[in-house]
């Protein structure tokens, strides 16, 4: 198990460099001149343009640009944005907010998703099951921005129960609404996955054996059925954590959350390689770690799975 974990971390190294190289190249290859765009169509003195180009190594060929970037990375210098701020500082502000939002959304998905899924799975074909199925279908069908604007208007503006937008520090309580919007679609998927998995396992041999042994209904459901049914759900949640940490441009925009999604979007539009690569680099690490945790959870959930 320790070896397995170690091996996975070693795999991170080529993945990280491969991904940053690719992303750096993609930003490099997008057409347009980021420095000329800085002046927004107004004139800019040629010497100023030249000085700025040199400052961001934009006057160098691709390999030298990337090499210089890597060289700085070794000294933990992520470079500077076009506004002259350290990328590390910018990311340091945005990531905690996105992380809070992602974990809240994930918690909503996991808790309510599994709960509703289990109940629906156990009462297959009953009223609750049917209601949950229809409701989840509706949620999946409605685009996130519609959900976001509607909840913002109803809860934030008309009822006044919550601030319609998130204030600067993005405290936990103000993030509930955006986290709910962000988590709802995945919630629907988790419900459906759990339900399908539960209802399938209900007829498994080991469940019949457990029941025959005279175990209580609660123990059978929680320990035997649920634990074995969680594998697909955990896989889904692991992957979802990755995408949530990548920021949610739409939801962040609606609720004015100062998170990673907007940062990344703006950086791509501006052609700010340093920011884009840094965000993606962190994302790569998040994805790899999330996948590793999921794999380790498999072994815990299903004793038949062993890692050496």
């Amino acid at each position, binding site marked *: 198990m320790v070896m397995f974990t170690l091996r996975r971390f070693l795999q991170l190294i080529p993945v990280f460099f491969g991904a940053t190289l690719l992303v750096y190249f993609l930003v490099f290859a997008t057409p*347009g001149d980021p420095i*000329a765009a800085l002046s*927004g*169509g*107004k*004139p*800019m003195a040629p010497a100023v343009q030249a000085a700025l180009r040199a400052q961001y190594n934009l006057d160098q060929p691709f390999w030298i640009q990337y090499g210089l970037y890597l060289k700085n990375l070794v000294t933990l210098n992520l470079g500077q944005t076009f506004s002259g701020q350290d990328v590390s500082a910018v990311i340091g502000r945005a990531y905690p907010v996105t992380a809070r939002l992602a974990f809240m959304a994930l918690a909503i998905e996991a808790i309510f998703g599994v709960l509703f899924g289990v109940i629906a799975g156990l009462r297959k074909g009953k009223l609750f099951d049917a209601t949950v199925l229809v409701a989840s279908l509706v949620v999946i069908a409605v685009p996130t921005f519609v959900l976001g604007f509607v909840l913002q*208007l109803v809860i934030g*503006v008309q009822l006044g129960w919550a601030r319609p*937008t998130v204030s600067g520090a993005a405290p936990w309580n103000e993030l509930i609404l955006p986290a709910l919007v962000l988590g709802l679609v995945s919630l629907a998927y988790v419900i459906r996955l759990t339900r399908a998995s539960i209802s399938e396992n209900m007829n498994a041999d080991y469940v019949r054996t457990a029941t025959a042994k005279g175990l209580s209904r609660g123990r059978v459901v929680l320990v035997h059925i649920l634990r074995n049914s969680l594998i697909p759900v955990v896989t889904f949640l692991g992957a979802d954590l990755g995408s949530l940490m990548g920021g949610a441009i739409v939801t962040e925009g609606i609720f004015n959350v100062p998170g990673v999604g907007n940062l990344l979007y703006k950086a791509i539009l501006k052609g700010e390689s340093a920011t884009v690569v840094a965000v993606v680099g962190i994302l790569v690490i998040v994805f790899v770690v999330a996948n590793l945790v999921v794999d380790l959870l498999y072994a815990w959930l299903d004793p038949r799975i062993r890692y050496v």
Partner: protein
Amino acid sequence: MRYSRTSKALGLAAVLAMSITACGGTSGGNNTSAAANTSKAITANGTEPQNPLLPANTNEVGGGRVMDLIFSGLVSYDVHGKTVNELAQSITTTDSQHYTIKIKSGQTFSDGTPITAKNFVDAWNYGAAAKNAQLNSYFFAPIKGYDKVSADKSTLDTMEGLKVVDDTTFTVDLTAPESDFPLALGYTAFYPMPESAYKDIKAYGQNPVGDGPYKLAPGGWKHDTSITLIPNDKYQGPNKPKNGGVTFTLYSSPDAAYTDVQSDNLDVLDQVPPSGLQNFKTDFKGRFVNQAYAGNATMTIPSYLPEFKGEAGQMRRQAISMSIDRQQIIDKIFYGNKKVATEFTSPVLDGYDANLPGSDVLKYNPTKAKELWAAADKISPWPAGKVFTITSNIDGAGNKEYITAMANQIATTLGIKAQLNPIATFKESRNLINSKKLTGASRAGWQADYPSLQDFLGPLYGTGAGSNDGDYSSPAFDAKLKEGLAAKSVDEGNKIFNQAQEILLKDLPVIPLWYQAVQGVWSNNVTNVEFGWNGVPLYYNITAK
């Protein structure tokens, strides 16, 4: 005013597209039921400044909003864009080329150090020098010696045209007469910086000490979140704050800000998002403004296009102009919130003339358009199957819709193919325009940096000028421009600039479309909200209830 990054990225013309109904301004009445509270702070929308807060490095609205409150210059602009002396005691010249500037004595920066003539000279030299790479450097171009300090790799740091005479007097020598030079002196680039700034300019850019009605609160700039300003008690000028401070909440989209004003979480919003254009007047009864500001939208037809050269080209440009039903686009796409352009500048400026001879070419006239197009075809036929394209970035709301509509009108009227050439990002479209690689027209527009007719003409249509994207060159126009700049007074200059516009109306280097307007709304918690000539609220006059 400088450009807005969002709106540029999102498309200057359309997003700021907030736009007008009437250029006169239809401000709603103020509700003054509660007593004003001058010690209470107000909140307003903002965006993260794109650059450190240095006068010569701030060229977009996010930073500009803040800079214009924490600094004041030699002159300032009143609500109508009239230039009034602020720190200047007098600005005198006999030939519009050599200026003597006297500043009022006893004025100080917010840290208490006196403002001297040297502070201006040093700040301007700093802004101009190539080694400092300041974005507004080109504003100092008229000053003698600019060419040397701004040359690539130049290590010089003073311009010979600036001379300190004594503590309160300095002289400015320009390379050529410029009658509207005093008008520019209220622009951000020309603000003074205290001596202490140069010790650590990087730290100063994060926490500037200025001389304006407000100052940055300690730790007031919380990046990507908010910027808090408090009144500067050392300020002695005309714009004394009537509130206890301004906090800019930084938004990534105007939609979120609009929702916040609706629920009284934000006090003032100066940019109603496109989604609110239809309803803001009913959503904010008596709490909105809709007025023209110094900006316009145009379409550039580059002179290097083979189909638009010579006499045929001129007729074609006129035909295209007459085939656009501007009012219809304004009504259908902008909900009436703009005003049809009748010339190349803006109605809020001194010297504006709505009825210049030749302005008929900007009126919708399909019959005449067809005739002109046919006449042009006789001289040199329009290539068979050639599509007339209009290039625009589409990474923001609004551009795509109106340009598609415009292309359809042109196609229908002239019987040719016309369409939008969509470009994904602003930087990419800028690249196409700068490298002169367009194969058709392109979306354009201008916002004034300072209230001057000339600012809408010289930088855009003068031969070889910095923003002359279409490479327009007319000796007659250049001569008029020069004559206007050498005029003895601004008024006299404006008359000549309008004659220069008559030349443009014949040549149509760009096709003027409409004037921009600002749509602003405010919450129930504030009163006395007024917007200035540049579409920016007069924050210092707003009072909290």
